[in-house]
């Protein structure tokens, strides 16, 4: 069973811009009780580097999926056994700054480092889009979420004149490619979107 997820975009890691990547995630039979499998990409352009994203690789084991590609700075501490809270020991200090994890690592990686397994979102076992209601199983209700960002300037990104507090999370927050500041299509809101 193969997952072909969104095209990975350029990711700025430690000030370096890396090439576009393709993430292919395989929901492994390991998750469901079998051994590890690697599955081929589905209709990805041949001139782009491919990354096989494997559910049985530890979230911090960059090389497990990225192979020899340098996705963290050369002098970075070993990431193999790190979980999200370990990363935040260094990266959490300046939220939104250049070292903050949410602006340097795709959100899907953060979920993985937090311990969220692929199948917790993609519960059908197929490469299907994940609905907003799935996000809300962990992130509580939309109004409570909007309260958390109520003081963000110049406006609350989770409460707008377009959608109230009910904008679909997926409009801005992407898991397997760089998230986007949808507001910036029209407004000069300089949000950093995890």
């Amino acid at each position, binding site marked *: 069973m193969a997952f072909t997820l969104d095209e990975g975009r350029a990711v700025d890691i430690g000030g370096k811009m890396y090439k576009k990547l393709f993430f292919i995630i395989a929901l492994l039979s390991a998750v469901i009780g079998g051994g590890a499998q690697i599955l081929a990409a589905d209709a990805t352009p041949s001139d782009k580097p491919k990354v096989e994203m494997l559910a049985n690789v530890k979230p911090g084991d960059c090389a497990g999926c990225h192979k020899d590609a340098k996705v963290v700075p050369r002098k970075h501490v070993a990431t193999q056994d790190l979980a999200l809270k370990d990363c935040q020991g260094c990266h959490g200090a300046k939220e939104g700054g250049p070292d903050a994890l949410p602006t340097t690592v795709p959100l899907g990686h953060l979920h993985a480092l937090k311990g969220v397994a692929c199948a917790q979102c993609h519960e059908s076992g197929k490469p299907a889009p994940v*609905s*907003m*209601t799935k996000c809300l199983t962990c992130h509580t209700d939309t109004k409570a979420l909007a309260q958390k960002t109520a003081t963000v300037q*110049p*406006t609350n990104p989770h409460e707008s*004149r*377009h*959608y*109230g*507090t*009910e904008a679909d999370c997926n409009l801005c927050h992407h898991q397997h490619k760089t998230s986007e500041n949808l507001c910036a*299509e*029209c*407004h*000069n*809101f300089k949000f950093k979107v995890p």
Partner: protein
Amino acid sequence: MSRDHSQDGKVMDQYTRTVLEQGVSRRSFLSRTAAGATGLGMLGVTGCATADTATPTGAAGGDFGKSSDGGASLSFLPKPQSIADKDIATTLTFDVVVVGAGAAGVPAALSAAENGASVAVIQKAPFALSQGNTGSGILLANSDKAGVEAMISRIVADNCHRCNPALVRQWAYNSGEAVSWVIDRARQGGSPVISEGNAQHGDTLDVNGYKLDWVTAMFGPKPYTNGDGMRHLAVTAEKAGVKFFYNLPASQLVQSPSGDVQGVIAKSRDGQYTKFLARKGVIMATGDYQNNKAMSDYFIPDVKHMGRKQMGKTGDGFAMIYWAGGVIEPIGHTKMLHDFDAGPAPMCDMPFLAVNREGKRFVNETAEMSVLNNYLRDAKNAGHYCKVFDANYMTQAAKWPGKLFPPDALKNWMPEEPGPKKGVFNSLVNTHRADTLEELAKKLELDPPTFLATVKRYNELVASRKDTDFGKPAHLLVPVEKPPFYGIHHTVRISAICSGMLIDDTHCALNADGRPIKGLYVIGNLGGGFYGGVDYPLTVPGLSLGRCYTFGYLVGRQVAKS
């Protein structure tokens, strides 16, 4: 297959006949793809396949796709899935069901309730939504009838003579009553709406020598808009008994075996279906489809690279009515692209030097803002242009159309100016001042050498008193030479697409035979026939919202009394 295009003895008008012949319906799509496939030799040896056996392919159909049941479909109009009764969690029955709570839907619901109907409104968003500020109508008591007819003729002409005049006439003779009613009822809901009268209608108080008198609902100033206004109107509607169901997108219409529309099925975010049965009729008011990229590229490729002002307008109502047998107006829909936010709105049509994103002059600047999108359709320009003037603008442009704002007032539209701003969206203002043209170019995101060369050339034309590049009248040629310099960086984006479904003058949707689909009514930007030109005409400020209010008011009452 023979087609009876007559409407029960009525002589069919030119507009309706044309849309039936050229519009997009399930039947026309099938027959056209069959014809296309035959032309390409893709139908097998007999060459006489019927529409039902045609097999459209990517090669034959372009953007056409196949629906999951194998039947042909436009890919952006997905066929509704069959929903079994056992999967319906709740069934509710009302006299009237309105789909969409906007500038047409909320007035329709309130109007129906005031005329004795039980009414439900199903709305995809968490509240009523609308845009713009101004909605206008003609007060008949103080207007010449010849003036009303002259106004109708002017609007029809500004629609390139391609609309259904009966609908324009219906707006003209009912809009004064409807807009006055909206103002009154919105106030009852707490709205600070201003009844502006003739203030915005200086150009249309006299049409061909005949007098007109206007009523204008001004839901403003910004950031208060018609969206807030419709939310206030919804308060009045709720008091009148209308039940609003928010966060609940409609997904398909319920039809009898003979095709009459009996209700709507809506699907909540968690996948629960609710069936709304309508004893008297379903009024569709779901707006346009500007956020449905495939559909937009198909019907109105002009705006492929243009930004969208609205969100979530995915054309749901088009798909629902199409699959109920309705007809979408032919390709080449009318578009509305404006920018009233970057600088003062009354200065937007002033013929100052205009440059595109390259920093080059591109037009005789007497062309109004509402048509400039046609020069800026490519991916690079994407609706961006700048109007440029110098320190003498208050005297040199004093007699130009519109209203000038002095330098101190212009600061309200300058993002660099600190302090609170009034009557604007802070995040959309884009006016700049600079002491040099190089500095202004940078602030306007233009290439300085190109921009400087353009200004130099323009000043030469001004000095010669002849615009040998674009032919702008000599009295409108003023130099850009005295600092400080000013520039307004406009970005026209899609406010609305205002072509829609084929309807008759009772706003009942028509099928491909030109016959009414009983129980199905269409208003607002989902309704066709009112426009038809390349661009929405700015003949009458507030025509768009005035039309939405008027048809909501009329159709709500009509369906309630049916």
